[in-house]
């Protein structure tokens, strides 16, 4: 399984934590699509606690990983 943890308003939409069945070659983009999120949506994704950057959707995920998905706040 892969654990997905949501932050900010995404928690209201998808819940705090969602688990996705792992399979070989599973990518972050596959995971978000299974949850119902477009892989085109601009979100910040971390694998464990490390940011994945702009290529996040193409990153393959290992079993028992945790990914964090969040929209940052840019106001001041």
């Amino acid at each position, binding site marked *: 399984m892969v654990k997905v943890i949501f932050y900010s*308003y995404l928690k209201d939409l998808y819940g705090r934590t969602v688990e996705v069945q792992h399979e070989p070659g599973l990518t972050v983009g596959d995971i978000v699509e299974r949850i119902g999120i477009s892989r085109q949506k601009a979100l910040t994704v971390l694998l464990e606690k490390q940011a994945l950057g702009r290529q996040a959707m193409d990153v393959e995920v290992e079993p028992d990983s945790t990914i964090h998905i969040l929209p940052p706040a840019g106001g001041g």
Partner: protein
Amino acid sequence: MERFKDSLGILNEEQFERIKHARILLVGLGGLGGYIANGLVRLGVERFTLVDYDRFETSNLNRQLFSTPGNVGEKKADVLRQAMKEIYPDVSIEVHDGDLASLDDAPVQNADLIIDATDHVATKLDIERLGAEFEKPVLHGGIGGWYGQLGIITPGEKLISALYGDNEKGVEETLKCPTFAPAVIGNLMVVEALKFLAGMKHALINRVLFVDLLTHDYDILFDTE
């Protein structure tokens, strides 16, 4: 020292002296910046360069600490300089009435900490680059709706870039900014500035604290340790 005695329960003399002589470059004097300026000057920080070319507007009244109906239309930098001087007359304040690109090198070179209290993602990224160029740490903060994040970024660590990615705006675009958001996140930034400047343990160095005031979830991510 009477004015600072209630802060000295958590600071020794050496730490207080470090704070007193620290030089702060504070970019953005709105929601976050107002609370940060207020907190740091009351802690005893004496040297500031304030950067903001904006003026107070009516819409600022819901959340910006130094915003009043009487100063709508006045420059934020001027209002904050006067207010900080009233709070602590010994404070030394330079004001840059322009954008970051037009700032001289000296205030950056002399800074012990650059504080990102801006409300534009592009400027936040510029601040990160500035910190890297001049090898200065950056205390980052961002707010929107019930949410916010903060952390100290050391030169060369691109956590702000990683945080925003290709986003030109954050959740504040739709969730706006309620009264309490800059107060909470701004004062958390004061806490981190204090710990960092005083050389204390547990500062959020290359870590980002995400704050959810709706559910009271507090999470530290981007942990490079």
